[in-house]
């Protein structure tokens, strides 16, 4: 039966060529969009690894104030902010805070020689950011006062980075090298996905800033945890207090929740547009397929009439029509799979192969569903052909 269907389709290959091409393109579209959705969905479901809900970011831009007095001013501002009743904790950090869209990628290697160097995003954090981010540690400890006199500056790694640099051994107490500077590992965190909800998990390297450190350079970025319910009133208070100490500076205050929302909007807009376009293309293909099949049934009345006259049942006829469409779909699908399978084989875009296979399965299922959906009504039509009427038309 199936071989017979293949012969039928093959005999009409010139006429079916366009339909197969269309199926092929539809599969490619479904596969591309499916891959994107599967990729983002996978990333979105991975926990961020830190808390952002009650975290605010304060940017202090000193403008023309002389270099010398800046750190003192920042420390005064921090002390003042910490004293506010709505604030739980305050700490300095580098400007690549979570959801800000800025990166700091550097190679990190194991040992003094930096063996097996791998890219990791680096963050500078003060001790107090422990309460701000509330990063759960899987081993070791967070930075603290006892690091002040240490020979090597301390570092906290995420687990993926630790496993990569020190396979099958404890990373705690080990030395790592980052751009010619040595660090001693004091803790391991599960993950720290500061790039945002939709970005892939990346290794992260956290470094300590001591209160006197001027390593953060010109601008100062503060992160603070506020009490639940803090709003515009606290923001206004923070701004006035800050400007009273840091005269002539520029102060920017925003919340991580807001930055996250903005980042999500920016990332989801093109995806949403793409999905809309994909839906349109699929509907378009479905309507076209439906029309062509309908037309084909009208043209093949004589053939189907003969089959009915020779004793084929209505069910048999409709099965044949649906079967033919499925065979057509399979041809297009095989062509499409040939293209799609290149992506995991070549490891394109650094995306795990599982994402591609999920997308392939989803796209294939979608394509078959589409084909069957479009073939159902024409197949009913074909089954309803009265042999006597059809044969008289000749």
């Amino acid at each position: 039966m199936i071989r017979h269907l293949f012969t039928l389709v093959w005999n009409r290959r010139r006429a079916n060529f366009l339909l197969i091409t269309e199926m092929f393109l539809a599969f490619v579209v479904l596969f591309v969009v499916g891959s994107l959705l599967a990729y983002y969905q996978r990333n979105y479901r991975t926990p961020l690894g830190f808390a952002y809900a009650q975290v605010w970011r304060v940017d202090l831009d000193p403008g023309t104030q002389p270099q010398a007095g800046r750190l003192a001013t920042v420390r005064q501002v921090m002390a003042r902010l910490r004293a506010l009743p709505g604030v739980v904790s305050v700490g300095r950090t580098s400007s690549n805070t979570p959801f800000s869209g800025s990166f700091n990628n550097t190679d990190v290697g194991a040992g003094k020689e930096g063996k097996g160097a791998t890219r990791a995003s680096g963050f500078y954090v003060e001790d107090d950011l422990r309460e701000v981010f509330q990063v759960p540690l899987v081993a070791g400890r967070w930075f603290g006062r006892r690091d002040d006199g240490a020979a090597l500056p301390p570092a906290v790694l995420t687990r993926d980075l630790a496993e990569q640099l020190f396979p099958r051994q404890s990373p705690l107490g080990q030395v790592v090298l980052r751009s010619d500077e040595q660090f001693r590992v004091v803790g391991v965190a599960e993950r720290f996905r500061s790039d945002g909800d939709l970005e892939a998990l990346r290794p992260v390297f956290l470094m300590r800033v001591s209160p006197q450190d001027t390593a953060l350079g010109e601008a100062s970025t503060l992160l603070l945890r506020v009490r639940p319910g803090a709003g515009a009133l606290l923001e206004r208070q923070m701004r006035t207090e800050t400007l009273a100490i840091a005269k002539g500076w520029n102060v920017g205050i925003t919340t991580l929740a807001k930055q996250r929302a903005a980042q999500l909007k920016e990332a989801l807009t093109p995806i949403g547009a793409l999905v809309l376009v994909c839906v349109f293309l699929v509907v378009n293909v479905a309507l076209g397929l439906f029309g062509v099949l309908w037309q084909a049934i009208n043209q093949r009345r004589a053939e189907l009439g003969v089959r009915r006259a020779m004793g084929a049942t209505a069910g048999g006829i409709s099965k044949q029509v649906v079967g033919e469409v499925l065979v057509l779909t399979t041809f297009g699908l095989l062509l499409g799979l040939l293209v799609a399978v290149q992506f995991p084989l070549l490891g394109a875009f650094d995306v795990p192969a599982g994402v591609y296979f999920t997308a392939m399965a989803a796209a294939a299922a979608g394509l078959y569903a589409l084909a069957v959906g479009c073939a159902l009504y024409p197949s009913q039509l074909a089954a309803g052909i009265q042999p006597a009427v059809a044969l008289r038309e000749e």
Partner: protein
Amino acid sequence: MLWNYLKIAWKVLLRRKFFTAISLFGISFTLMILLVVYALFDYTVGPHQPEMRTDRLLFASRMEYQYKDGGVNRSSLGYAFLDRHARPLRTPENVSISESNWSEAVAYVGNQTLKLDQKRTDSEFWQVLNFTFVAGRPYNLREVRDGAHVAVINETTSRHYFGTTQGVVGRPLVLDSRAYQVVGVVRDVPLLRFSCYADVWLPVTTTTDDLRNPDYMGRYQVILLARSAADVPRVQQEYEQMIAHQPVPDPKQFKQIGSHALLLRTAVLSRFARGSQGPGSDQPILRLMLMLALLFMLLPALNLVNINVSRTLERSSEIGVRKAFGATAGRLVGQFLVENIFLTLVGGVLGLALAAGALHLLNESQFLPYSEFGLNGRVFGMALGIVLFFGVLSGAYPAYKMSKLQAVKALKGDTAA
């Protein structure tokens, strides 16, 4: 002749309404999507208020230091550097220096916080660009020189802060605890116009930044207005020569420096691409966009071809008669192409209406602040181009196939292909 073709086309369209509906759906939605994308593109880089003279305006907003070992450091430009070297350029008609990005400023209305995007500019900014003033005037050279605390605001800010756009000129606006006197109110500038967008524009001299800092890098951009569109290459050349004459800072570390004055389209597109800049650096991304548009059209076009082929075979007896009476293949191809283009034109009109609706929805949702997307002559021309292209693309193969039908077979109704 043409009139007859159109009449036939119309009758054919009415004969099978379901097929016509499918075809029109495909055509109109394809066109709508392409038009919406093009309207966004046009709105971002086409001549719109306040950048009306896009063929004469040149923007330089980036300075590049190339490291000896291959890396690149990019930033906006320094004010003193631009003031000393870009302002005296001889070929441009006018030169304006302003902050390349906006920054946040805060104003309070009662207990509410109003976050405003501010941009500091010189007075030439208002001559080089064509802002539409609802009230008042721009700040002038003297006010900029004296560092006067004056401000030009947009309509929305005026409504939020003062509650009205009428009679606000001369009233004070307190930004970051400093009072500015409003001298003018302009129409809202959309966010997509990076180079000039802001809620509040202030004289550059009111900044806390050190304007005498001689570094090449800073937070400023320069906008050059050429005397005519034909003069643009000469202005670009003079700017590049000026940059080439500057000594490389820290020659041990850096190989060379680079900065380019670019047309708006090039500047914006290469900003999106985040690659290196140059007078032709928007070509790759333009080609990519064209490719994507073609790829996108492929599926609907193929669909239309499929439907068209089924429909022509249905008309085989008509074709047989025409052939038997001596119509040449070329004539039949012509007729079918005209019919198909007619169909796509009808779809095109629908598509334009759909696009207008979609853009209206986008505007209403204020998805992009202050956006006023719309259809204009250029979008209209683009629509016509796409429709004709699409009509020929989807009509050619069915027409060829139809013309190949043999008269005898066609008359017998034997349509097996």
